[in-house]
């Protein structure tokens, strides 16, 4: 005998089940999934959004996906330009100038010898001096440029003329893309010169080292390394090229 079988009639079961079926559909339609999350998050309360979205809203992989696509498209662009220039000497000359400009702007991947500088937070860092700040990265990059580096990348992000280093809460943003320590700065140039510039007495690294933990900085000479192309946007809104009058 079913112990729950009661004397009361069970006429409620079927209608409730039928409506339950509808409710099930409704619940599924409302469920917040990966696809609807980004659209729904900004309509939720902040704390609710944090509960649902923490960790799962994968902006970083989205950024990576988009930058990969940008890199691919730019590479194709270069290929097309090369293909076009094969026809005549004039276009060839034009293309060479163009490619040179692109190399200078950091729009192409570049390979060559250089340095790899690794900046780490001190183990068990207690004071603000013992962690790597945006300013430290900026100083290192600046020093490398000054010492004649031809190309620099920070954690796989190519540094170009409009690159920025910012501190946003606990993370450093390079061109508005968050990076996680350790910060690996790669530079192409003469390894000896670059190393000398970085290790100047009272130089940029001396300041970091003076906090007591030499393991915060590591400099390695690299025989051959490939720096990726810049994958950020290049569109302009306000600037206009000044026309040069040709006589």
């Amino acid at each position, binding site marked *: 005998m079913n*112990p*729950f079988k*009661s004397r*009361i*009639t*069970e*006429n*409620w*079961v079927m*209608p*409730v*089940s*039928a*409506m*339950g*079926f*509808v*409710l*099930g*559909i*409704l*619940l*599924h*339609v*409302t*469920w*917040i*999934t990966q*696809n*609807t999350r980004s*659209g*729904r998050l900004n*309509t*939720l309360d902040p704390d609710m959004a944090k509960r649902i979205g923490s960790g799962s809203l994968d902006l970083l992989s989205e950024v990576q996906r988009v930058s990969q696509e940008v890199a691919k498209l730019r590479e194709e662009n270069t290929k097309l330009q090369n293909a076009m220039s094969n026809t005549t000497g004039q276009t060839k000359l034009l293309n060479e100038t163009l490619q040179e400009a692109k190399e200078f702007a950091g729009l192409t991947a570049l390979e060559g010898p250089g340095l790899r500088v690794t900046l780490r937070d001190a183990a068990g860092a207690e004071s603000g001096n013992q962690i790597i700040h945006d300013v430290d990265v900026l100083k290192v990059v600046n020093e490398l440029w000054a010492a004649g580096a031809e190309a620099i990348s920070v954690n796989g992000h190519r540094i170009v003329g409009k690159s920025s280093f910012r501190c946003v809460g606990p993370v450093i943003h390079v061109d508005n893309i968050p990076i996680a320590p350790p910060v690996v700065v790669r530079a192409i140039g003469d390894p000896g010169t670059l190393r000398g510039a970085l290790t100047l007495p009272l130089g940029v690294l001396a300041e970091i080292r003076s906090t007591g933990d030499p393991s915060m900085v590591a400099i390695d000479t690299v025989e051959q390394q490939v720096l990726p192309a810049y994958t950020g946007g290049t569109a302009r809104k306000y600037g206009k090229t000044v026309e040069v009058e040709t006589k």
Partner: protein
Amino acid sequence: MILVPIIAVLAGFALSAILKLGPVTGTAGIYLGVACLAGLDTMFGGIRSGMEGKFQNDVFISGFIVNVLIAFSVAWMGDNIGQNLVLVAALVFGMRIFSNLGVIRRFVVTKWHDELVRRREQAEKAAQTQNSQANS
């Protein structure tokens, strides 16, 4: 008995997933969420009244549909007139869901308890008759 509606909910969920009806994007999802709460509340209310023996088919079904529609449209209207009626609806329906669940739980536990008592009495009775038979 209480399992049948639960299975029905899961079946609806599965069907929607198979047919790829949802999920909806954007703010409509918020209002649908409130509608879900209304539906959930009506369902628990239906189970509760069923256990109390006061279940009425037409009241329940009209209640379900109208509650869901009203919850959706009132929440939508609230946003359009700048009042967070979504929260209000969530609060009211949430409270009713919990109170309904409490009543259902009490019903089930009481029934179970009564059944235990009844069985024990039956067993005692049987033992007594056996004893008396053995004595005689």
